[in-house]
């Protein structure tokens, strides 16, 4: 595990600000193309286009005006529980075709990984204090 400082000294709070404009510009273009399709033919395809832009609008709104964190940031050096969680989810997913028993095994592994991950993150926060 390691600590890294915030990314800079610009902006309120010390970090670099900005970055939302390209997200909004791109999402705006997509909404425009979706609206054009909606006017032309309507239906589900235009909803796909407009809906697809939403994650970026949300990210842009969240980021707008927020400086990057200037305080010391904790960086995990390695994280075994993340791999356990991923393997558990994948096992459960494969269980959807192999049978309920594998879904349960996978869910158990994933739950174990999730608890382990939570513990790892709590310990990190304590170490930082």
């Amino acid at each position, binding site marked *: 595990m390691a600590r890294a400082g915030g990314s800079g000294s610009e902006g309120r709070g010390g970090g670099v600000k900005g970055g939302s404009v390209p997200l909004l510009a791109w999402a705006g273009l997509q909404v425009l193309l979706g609206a054009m399709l909606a006017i032309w033919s309507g239906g589900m395809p235009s909803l796909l286009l407009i809906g697809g832009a939403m994650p*970026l609008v949300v990210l842009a709104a969240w980021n707008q005006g927020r400086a990057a964190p200037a305080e010391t940031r904790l960086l995990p050096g390695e994280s075994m529980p993340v791999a356990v969680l991923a393997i558990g989810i994948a096992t459960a997913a494969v269980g959807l075709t192999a049978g309920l028993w594998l879904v349960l095994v996978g869910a158990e592994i994933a739950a174990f990984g999730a608890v382990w991950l939570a513990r790892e993150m709590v310990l990190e926060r304590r170490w930082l204090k």
Partner: protein
Amino acid sequence: MAVGAPVALPAGRALGWLVGTDHKRTAARTAVVSLGFFLLSGVLALVMRAELAQPGLQFVSDHSYDELFTMHGSGMIYLFLTPAALALGLYLVPLQIGAADAALPRLSLWGFWTYLCGGLAMYGGFLTADGAGRDSWNASIPLASSTNTPGVGMDLWVIGVALAVAGSLAIAVSILVTIVRRRAPGMTMLRLPVFTWAMLATTFMVVASFPVLVVAMGLLLAERHLGGVFTGATGSIAYQHLFWFYGHPVVYVMFFPFVGAVAEVVATFSRKRFFGYRALVVSLLLFTALSMAVWGHHMFITAAVQNQYFSLTSHLLAVPAGIEYFDLIATMIGGAILLRTPMLFALGFILQFLIGGLTGIVVASPPLDYHVNGSFFIVAHFHYTLFAGSLFGLLAGVHYWFPKATGAMLREGLGKLSFWLLAIGANVTFFPMFFLGFDGMPRRVPDYAPRLGDLNLLSSIGAGVIALGVLVFLANVVVSLRRREPAGKDPWGAQTLEWWTSSPPPRHNFESLPAIRSYAPLLDLREAAEAWPAPEEAAAKEGAAA
């Protein structure tokens, strides 16, 4: 100016390569695994070309051939090019923007493991009684229903695709948030290097389109087991909308990072600042926005989409693409061009992708698309974009950044040999396919009319040359790593921040950073040093002149 003050805590090293969260390690793992899937999928292509070398069935059954082209296409798209492109971004973006690490490192680690599990699930289908997935990389309904394609192998394919795509999505989110939130002081959005802009545009498409495929695969699995999800003709069309909403943007996900890589290579080896930076930024945003609105051109023949709209948006792509080509060529004009291996691959990308792009105009026109749809013309078109284009762009990037990642130079002679083998192989393999398509050879069949035998044989010979080129590249990597020629910090005289730090970079990337005043900070420093040399340098120059 320091980026941060990292403090290392005791950490086990044995598992570091498997579960380390350093963005460079996650990226390296993803790249190595994707290379493995590339080789596997490439072997499948060689078996296919062996089968197609002559008319009549020689090596595999119809059923096996279906598995081969499905797993070849799926492997190359879901398991090789997309993750490799994202791995390149995950490695380089934090370095290019002066960040100590990537944002959300656990998420990218989760992405890697999920992607790996997805790939293993997809290939695991070969171990089942009915074999692996066999409905092509897009698995259309009703072909992919449990009635028409029964078996666990196809289920594993569906689950594997969902996992692999979810993993790629997680890696992309990490890259996106890194660019938005972790830039170094002075690194404004209009000072991002060209490659980072290309990655930003790429992640926009990933975030907007990849979740749709994960949902589509979930629904397809439900359809196979429960039924009633994609029923009738409207169900089939609904699935196609969902699939191609992902399926077209992913082509650009496999292309844009390499445009960025090629742009960096061209600027460095032309000894010039990249031409038309702002125009390129605008064209990237326009290109990626339009790329989300062209999926319907894959469905022209269904008569269920607004052909005029999708034809218009598809043709409009030529505008930003033209701007990018103009910028690349203008960067070279007047430059002192060095034809090193990365530059050769970059030029190969520029020339060969142009063939893929221009033939894309054909399939963007409904009347022409009606003729070539489902034929080998399409196979030629997308192999010119993805193999002769994207793979050459990837190799330009690999040869360019290999010294940074490993601290060792790749051998120039072997690099050039692999370039020529791959360039000759790609064109001998894929160019005949345009004629085969126009002559009526359908794709996805193991047998064909005898009159098409000569061109198919030529194409199969080309595939062998490609395999040789790949082997030479692998030999180059092995030789260069075993007998290392140290690279130093900046062996190319490059322009962007990753070349400021050591090769390979330390855990937190930088000990210090130079002032960032443009998208080419190292070039700024060199130009400033030439304009305002240190007193002793100026005296030495004057002495030499005297």
